[in-house]
């Protein structure tokens, strides 16, 4: 029994699931669900569809180079059954899985590094531009004590506190 990979999205195709298309040159295309099959029939390129693994790999969204990827592979030769080996493999699987998950988390964290500062900056700019949506300029002119001075004091300090006037 083999767990094949989907041609389109690279997810695992378990027995009894998905559909298989054999082209007239005997090439086999396996699909994990009708979504992938339909996308194939529309002649879409998996490298250009954002939710596929191929896209995510190509654009640095997922980890690419790692030693944990060397274990799972298609083995086109029969292996003689060895009880000790099978036991060792079963023991190693959860360990390797744990290591891979940890490395993937690290990769994700690394990728998202500069994001928080960027988000804060964008939020601050939006607040500055859209402050009139919360308080019309005429109100601000009449009673400057409402929000404007509060912001002026808060800007040089912490940027997170700037969001307060929006919550009102």
């Amino acid at each position: 029994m083999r767990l094949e990979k989907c041609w389109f999205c690279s997810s695992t195709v378990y027995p009894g699931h998905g559909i298989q298309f054999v082209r007239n040159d005997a090439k086999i295309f396996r699909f994990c669900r009708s979504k992938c099959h339909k996308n194939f029939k529309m002649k879409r390129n998996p490298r250009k569809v954002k939710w596929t693994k191929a896209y995510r790999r190509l654009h640095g969204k997922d980890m690419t180079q790692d030693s944990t990827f060397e274990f799972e592979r298609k083995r086109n030769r029969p292996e003689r059954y060895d009880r000790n080996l099978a036991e060792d493999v079963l023991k190693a699987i959860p360990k390797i899985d744990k290591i891979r998950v940890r490395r993937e988390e690290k990769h994700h964290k690394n990728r998202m590094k500069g994001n928080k500062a960027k988000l804060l900056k964008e939020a601050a700019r939006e607040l500055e531009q859209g402050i009139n949506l919360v308080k019309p300029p005429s109100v601000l002119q009449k009673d400057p004590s409402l929000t404007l001075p509060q912001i002026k004091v808060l800007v040089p300090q912490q940027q997170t506190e700037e969001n307060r006037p929006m919550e009102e």
Partner: protein
Amino acid sequence: MGGKCPHRSVKKRRYSHKTARRTKFLHKGDDMVYDELKMPDEEKKPLPLDEDLPGMGQYYCLHCDRYFSNVAVRDEHFRTKRHKKIVKRMMGPAPHTQLDAELAAGMGMPDNGPKLMSM
């Protein structure tokens, strides 16, 4: 492609898009065309005479997998936008394959074992 097509709800006037459907199923895949283009020139066979095809199957566009009735029509085809688009796409990276899908899924290269016979 497709041609004249009355509204689908009018049962009497429906056309069967035989030509459209035929091209859909007989069309070569991207990877087949790519492989054929990559083949060295010596391996390419001369086009066989086939009286069922337009122009006895002698005027063929490899990129678009189409036969034409004569040289003039084929050269006209070479100037179309569709053809140029396909040519451009074929110049790029190789089309997606099952191996690419497996590598993207976190699998290693397939293990075929040692070569049994040295040829």
